């Protein structure tokens, strides 16, 4: 961007925190709800827990308008390409929340059908455990994500950071992130 280098430092930090503040309190969400967790997602959005209080109320079913992709529930190999495409359709800056253990790691569905965690397909910003998570856990996860968003550099799309992190993981030889056979190491 370059703009941040031309502004005085105090101003940039102020701006940065303001932008972070705005982003974290205005999370339009795309609920990619597939399974049981969808029920708890409903419960979180409904009156008892009212996720609207955090500004994360408005579900936009068009990925273009969403900031936060909730992957709610199990993703299997049949569905995986759709998830990837939706993620790619979203406008930056965007965040991904893995809601529940199936989305995070595949949970106890460790078989031919299920993707073992959506982080195999798309980068994930926050993992919420629980099968399905209680709404309290979801809110905790949202708060964690909010503080993460607040700390992100302004005017800089999060994906750059994520791409960097991912590349680092691949380089570091973490076997979870090593390329499949057929590519150079």
């Amino acid at each position, binding site marked *: 961007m370059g703009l941040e280098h031309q502004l005085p430092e105090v101003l940039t930090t102020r701006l940065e925190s303001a932008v972070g503040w705005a982003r974290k309190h205005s999370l339009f969400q795309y609920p990619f709800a597939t399974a049981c967790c969808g029920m708890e997602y409903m419960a979180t959005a409904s009156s008892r827990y009212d996720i609207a209080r955090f500004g994360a109320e408005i579900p936009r079913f068009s990925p273009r308008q969403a900031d936060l992709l909730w992957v709610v529930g199990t993703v299997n*190999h*049949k569905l*995986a*390409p759709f998830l*990837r495409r939706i993620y790619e359709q979203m406008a930056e800056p965007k965040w991904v929340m893995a809601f529940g253990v199936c989305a995070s*790691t*595949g949970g106890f569905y*460790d*078989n*031919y*059908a*299920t*993707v*073992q*965690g959506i982080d*195999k*397909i798309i980068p994930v910003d926050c993992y919420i455990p629980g099968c399905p998570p209680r709404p309290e856990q979801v809110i905790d996860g949202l708060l964690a994500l909010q503080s993460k968003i607040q700390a992100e550099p302004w005017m800089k799309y999060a994906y750059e950071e994520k791409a960097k992190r991912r590349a680092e993981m691949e380089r570091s*030889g*973490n*076997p*979870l*992130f*090593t*390329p*499949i056979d057929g590519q150079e190491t």
Partner: protein
Amino acid sequence: MSKKLIDFVAKHFADEVLDSHSRLGNDTVVLKRDRLPEIVERLRDDESTAMNMLRAITSVDYLNRIPRFEVVYVLYSISKKHMLTLRVVVEEEDCTAPSIHHLYGAAGWMEREVWDMYGVEFDGHPDLRRVLLYEEFEGHPLRKDYAKQASQPRLDLLVRERDSVEEFNVFYKSKPSEGSRDS
């Protein structure tokens, strides 16, 4: 439970019946394969049986048994409130069964499911596609010789599927012990 239904099948299709029992309250007839649609149609249309509902079709893979597969039909009569289980034996080499999609609307999808999961083909089914899995999938996952974790990702993923051994080694082991893992 009376054995009325078993007797009915035995009376009209004596040659087809391989075995029958009514253990645990489930009247069960084990049948040969070929005349199945005829038997089912008779059971459906005869007034004394009136099996107008097909509850389920499934298959069982008895690995290492000959014949290896069994296709199970559970019939029910809404008016008479009785149930009959038909088990049809299917060889591994000739893994087909006759379709009964013309008798029950429900059979269409149930047969597709059995084909999808077990690879039992249904002769005469007009639309025998996979129903739960995707076209690219090779093999039939509920066969006993299909490994549970043998996944077939559709995406050209950058990262490979979870390798449980490596995950355990990376995350769980306090110290890397020698040998089993990479440098």
